[in-house]
């Protein structure tokens, strides 16, 4: 039964020894089915000389179970013509087959079995409840179905979803009238959405317009301190959320000190990005995820490519599930003349300049380590009197703060935003 604080108090605050016991129970129950049903898992484990009979504890699993990566799955798919990359462990049990957005190129299929509530969105009800969504509230509906029916989350909380036809992916264009009329308590933003709201701020008192909101979610790319500060400046509490290794989502709580992974649904590890050993808590590691409740296309020791710092330290919100902060992707870094930087570093530079404060940009490069690269920068035409002056400001800021000198292409932000997919602007472009 839900409490005032927690949607599922028993599970959300399960003491860690019991949480670990629950994880072990689910993992050991699932592994035989997954090994028998998913051809890629069986092949991978056979190659490693491991079977489920060799795993009798979480420790055994961490010691012996092989890792899998997105490239492994794609390779299996390409070689065998298996659309699920060999991960379909329960053929015929799919209710939905959805996919990743493909914003970085390839699409990965995943399937779930469910009857009334899609499991991905079911656990998000925990976070919505925490943010303050309650029966009778209105939630501003999101507009990208790539992960399925987000409205299941608010429905579970007893709330009503407001669908505004002009609202796009992570942006709230045209939603002003609906917001003023129906007073939603939650909405979803991406980087593109914040850029759109930034433009609205020229015409509206944003604090007044958004005064009904108890919080907003932000996902799709790393949340820079500048973007968070901008949104908070409008009176909104921002809850960053992310994928947990393509298994389930993970959300910030009110403490805003990392995203809670729902460890009753996923077993997470932080592993040396260049090796296979776990890193100490708080150290930089690659997020590895194993599904505990999905028997249709389960991930097993999936190396996500996300660089994280993880902790199981007690959280001020009362939940006992581990938290992690995503620093970036293993492929996010660009190295120019020996100096490494990430898109977040560039974002911080652009947010300081009024004409580019929406941080609409792309890094165009030939590879990870280059001698030169191009920075494609979107400027707000209605705020810009001299494109050349803005260009010079960008160059100075990037040289000063990041220590690199890019070639710069300036174009109106709406033009650059139009090239985005899935509510995200691809930050790294290979040319």
């Amino acid at each position: 039964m839900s409490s005032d604080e927690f949607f599922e108090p028993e599970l959300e605050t399960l003491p860690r020894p019991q949480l670990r016991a629950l994880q072990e129970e689910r993992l050991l129950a699932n592994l035989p089915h997954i090994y028998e049903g998913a051809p890629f898992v069986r092949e991978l484990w056979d190659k490693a000389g491991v079977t489920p009979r060799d795993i009798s504890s979480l420790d055994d699993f961490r010691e012996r179970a092989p890792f899998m990566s997105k490239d492994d799955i794609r390779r299996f798919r390409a070689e065998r013509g298996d659309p699920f990359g060999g991960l379909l462990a329960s053929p015929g049990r799919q209710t939905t087959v959805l996919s990743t957005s493909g914003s970085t190129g390839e699409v990965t299929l995943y399937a779930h079995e469910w009857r009334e509530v899609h499991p991905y969105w079911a656990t998000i009800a925990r976070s919505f409840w925490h943010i303050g969504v309650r029966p009778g509230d209105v939630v501003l509906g999101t507009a990208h179905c790539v992960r399925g029916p987000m409205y299941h989350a608010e429905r579970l909380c007893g709330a009503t979803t407001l669908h505004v036809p002009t609202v796009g992916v992570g942006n709230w264009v045209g939603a002003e009238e609906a917001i003023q009329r129906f007073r939603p308590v939650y909405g979803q933003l991406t980087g593109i959405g914040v850029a759109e709201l930034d433009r609205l701020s020229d015409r509206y008192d944003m604090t007044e317009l958004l005064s009904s909101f108890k919080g907003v979610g932000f996902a799709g790319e790393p949340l820079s301190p500048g973007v968070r500060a901008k949104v908070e400046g409008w009176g909104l509490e921002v809850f960053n959320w992310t994928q947990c290794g393509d298994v389930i989502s993970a959300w910030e709580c009110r403490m805003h000190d990392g995203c809670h992974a729902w460890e009753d649904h996923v077993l997470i590890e932080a592993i040396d990005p260049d090796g296979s050993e776990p890193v100490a808590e708080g150290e930089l590691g690659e997020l590895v995820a194993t599904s505990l409740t999905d028997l249709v296309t389960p991930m097993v020791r999936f190396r996500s490519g996300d660089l994280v710092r993880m902790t199981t330290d007690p959280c001020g919100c009362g939940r006992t599930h581990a938290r992690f902060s995503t620093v970036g992707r293993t492929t996010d870094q660009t190295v120019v003349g020996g100096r490494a930087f990430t898109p977040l570093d560039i974002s911080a530079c652009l947010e300081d300049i009024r004409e580019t404060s929406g941080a609409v940009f792309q890094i165009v490069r030939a590879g990870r380590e280059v001698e030169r690269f191009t920075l494609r920068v979107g400027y707000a035409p209605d705020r810009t009197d001299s494109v050349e002056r803005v260009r010079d400001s960008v160059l100075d800021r990037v040289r000063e703060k990041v220590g690199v000198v890019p070639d710069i292409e300036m174009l109106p932000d709406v033009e650059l935003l139009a090239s985005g997919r899935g509510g995200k602007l691809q930050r790294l472009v290979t040319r």
Partner: protein
Amino acid sequence: MSADRTTDMIDPPSAAAARAFPAPEVLAISAYPTPSGLGYFEYGAQDRTDDVAWLRPALRRHGVGDGNVLALAPLQETVWFDPVLTAVRELGSPYSMTDNYTFDAFRNLVYIRQLGVRVMLGLTGQVAEALGEDLAEVVASVPTILARPDACEIVEQAGGRPFVFTPVGPALAVECPERAGAHVNGEIWDVAVDVDGEVRLTTVGRRLHHVSDLWTGVAAQVRRGECGCGESGPRLVLEPPRLTHPR
């Protein structure tokens, strides 16, 4: 705990937690176009139940239940698509979803090529155009396509024979295999055509939101009488296709 836990995990514990308090009577607030802007309306749990019951046989006639379904189901149109997808689930077809954005057109091809699709629901003109030459492959691969009016001519030019599938104000019209017009649920709605040839919608059954003589932006003729498919509600024979929900 048994190894086969799939049954245990249908509808996770979070769903059970939600049953501790009443489900919202108003599931959604959505909008249809009117001459003076957007007309917002409430959509209720009973509305959804009634819509699912009507859609199940309508979709079954098109082969839903016999294979994979691909629905171009924008979340902004949840009130129209949620009952459709619920009916699809109840009929036993696995389904995938894509969006009405040109950037998402390619994912339709991914599902069609990798999974095989028996029925495609809700193809829009925007996505049909974005598919370009690949639309011919879609038409050749997918046995049944239910398309928005603005997509029908494009699909026909690519060699297809789509059925009409379109929101009409707060209602939904679905053409049956008899190809005698797109049905609306006669238990809930009645339709008439005004002097300009535009369809006007009136609520005649149980509904949270009632309309009377509502302008819908759809140009059509109305047919009445029992259809060969067994449905007896009014049917809309659309005039040259137009976009019913401009974005």
